[in-house]
């Protein structure tokens, strides 16, 4: 079931169209990737989901009904440009922001204690934000994003500014949230983490929706008939006997018994047919069809 749906969203700023008929649909309990190059309109869409701005036209649905102003309490948002009041104490600040998200003071204190214990940062409660390192501030910001236990969480470039250890910690925390049933919208340029985390994506370019769907389907859809084969035997069969069928892209010969070849299959053949051609000639160690990475897909789609 869809937790959040945006249909045919149009947003114009004066004469500039920031979003032109963009639709997304986010399944409950999934991690959804919102992709696109800089200036594509991602931030505008995120601001519309956060009710910071309203669309000029289009429909928004939350849990199958019309999106309402109070739904904002069920959304958590970690913006790309992060910041906290520098002079305000950490504890006080998170409680204030949690109260703005509709928590009572009592609940906010209770939950903040839980998170402080979990991250082992109890000593920070009465520190001013400006006394913390950048990484520490990011952790606090993460807590403020999820302290009200939102059903929908929007992460805009969540990993920027974190070191690899903290990126890992954060990834685990995001997967944890997903397991607990939260739905996550994840906006990033980091395609590796998209492959790792997201199940569905929408790619926006120049204010328009140019690609959406399940991530594996998309990658399969962009397959270009490239295979990677590791084998032992004579590699010359590829460019003599099969030279009308295969086009070698790359070859790596470790020794006679371990050769890897990357090649393009020029005719319409399925995997079994390719294998049956090769089996009599060489002994196969591994055979795989190379699925394009999300980076490849991204570049290909955006460039066209």
């Amino acid at each position, binding site marked *: 079931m869809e937790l959040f749906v945006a249909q045919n969203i149009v947003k114009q700023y004066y004469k500039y169209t920031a979003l032109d008929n963009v639709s997304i649909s986010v399944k409950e309990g999934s991690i959804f990737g919102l992709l696109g190059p800089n200036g594509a309109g991602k931030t505008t869409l995120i601001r519309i989901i*956060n009710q910071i701005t309203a669309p000029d036209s289009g429909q928004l649905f939350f849990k199958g009904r019309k999106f309402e102003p109070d739904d904002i*309490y069920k*959304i958590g948002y970690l913006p790309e440009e992060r910041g906290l*009041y*520098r002079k305000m104490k950490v504890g006080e600040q998170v409680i204030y922001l949690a109260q*703005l998200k509709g928590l009572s003071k009592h609940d906010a204190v209770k939950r903040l204690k839980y998170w402080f214990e979990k991250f082992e940062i109890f000593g920070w409660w009465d520190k001013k934000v400006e006394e913390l390192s950048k990484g520490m501030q990011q952790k606090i910001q993460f807590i403020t994003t999820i302290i009200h236990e939102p059903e929908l969480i929007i992460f805009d470039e969540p990993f920027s500014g974190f070191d690899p250890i903290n990126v890992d910690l954060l990834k685990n925390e995001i997967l944890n949230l997903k397991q607990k049933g939260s739905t996550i919208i994840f906006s990033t340029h980091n395609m590796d983490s998209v492959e790792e985390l997201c199940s569905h994506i929408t790619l926006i370019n120049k204010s328009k929706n140019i690609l959406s769907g399940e991530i594996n389907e998309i990658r399969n859809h962009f397959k270009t008939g490239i295979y990677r084969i590791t084998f032992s035997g004579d590699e010359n069969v590829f460019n003599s006997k099969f030279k009308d069928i295969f086009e070698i892209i790359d070859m790596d010969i470790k020794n006679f018994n371990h050769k890897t070849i990357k090649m393009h299959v020029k005719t319409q053949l399925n995997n079994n047919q390719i294998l049956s051609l090769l089996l009599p000639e060489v002994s196969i160690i591994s055979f795989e069809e190379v699925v394009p990475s999300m980076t490849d897909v991204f570049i290909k789609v955006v460039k066209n």
Partner: protein
Amino acid sequence: MRKIALIISREYLSRIKKKSFIIMTILGPVLFAAMMVLPTYFANMEDKDVKTIAVIDSSKLFKDKIPNSEYLKFVYLENISLETLKKNFDNSGFYGILYITHMVGFSQPQVHIYSKKQPTMAIKMYIQSVLEKEIEKQKLYASGINDNILNAIKTNIKVIIIKLEDGGVEKRTNTGLIMAVGYICGFLIYFFIFLFGSQVMRGVMEEKGNRIVEVIISSVKPFQLMMGKIIGVGLVALTQFALWILLTFVFLNIFQTSLMPQHKVASSDQIVSQDLFTSKPLNQPIAETSDSNKITSELTESFSYLKYINFGVLIFSFLFYFIGGYLLYGSLFAIVGAVSDHDTDTQQFMLPITVPLILAIFVMVGAMQNPESSVAFWFSIIPFTSPIVMMVRIPFGVPYWQIYLSMALLVITFIGTVWMSAQIYRTGILMYGKKITYREVWKWLKYKS
């Protein structure tokens, strides 16, 4: 409503707890109280040691004719020359020598004061006036007018100003006092608008600068955030204002009891007297030092006129113009904060705010002299200057229709500026790293919400 209350309380508490607020709150009244008490204190200190002045009078006209004052004693020396006295001046113990040249008939005598120290203005004025009076008197004698006649023609007229109010009510007033009250009210409004308006601006810039604004407006409407800030800072202004008044009286009392226990005047008299002195022309101090009792009684008297001022109207209109003016300018300052990334950006947008405020101060000074002039009238109606200019006019008495008109226009205008600033604010706070021009701001006004 709950959210706007949360924002107001954060804005209010975070500012009240700041060191700078606490320091300002205490330092301000200390300075005010010192300004009121110290001049009187120093004047008293100086006057306490009696200065003796030797008089060498070649004209022989002034023997025993120069009266001693409280702090000046004159010793008439006959058998000593000016040169000898000057030579022995250090051992003589005199503060100075008053030397009067020979006079032919009633020609102008030359009068010199020799002294090691620079004689004060008060001493010079005193001697000058005493000698002038004496010569005038002698001239009158010479033309046959004696003391009896002189006393008989001495006249002292006091002008009592009575205002005719509607319904046949008559009210005594005192122009100096009215000017002082108006001036203080107008200036306070100017001061607080500037001080706290720029706090609103800096608060908006802070939120924009550290990007927290994006998190906050994903929970509250930009309008709520802006109004919460303006109201929160406004409450800080009112708090500071109330504390200043309270603490000024407290410190005034402390200073007076500790510095001059014998000279304790009701503190409110002091406030009034200070402003009366400063607004008086310069050639007055002679009267003040020579006859301080008379002055004190005059002050007490002028203070007594305070009760004829309509305080109900005054306080109500002060609060009204204070709040109205603050809301008007506070929302404009919020715009400046929203369109600026750095302090340097603010300057080009500050100009349209500072010009009317400073203009209002100039007009206010003129309006004190002539509250009915057409300049004073128009500037007290125009909302951008009315909070300051009208406050000067009100103690003089302003027709009610003018007050109502001015207040109504102020309310309409601040609703307009608040609407306009909300429109610009919500776009501006999310525009990072872009040099913003007036043309750009104009476009934002036309965005649909």
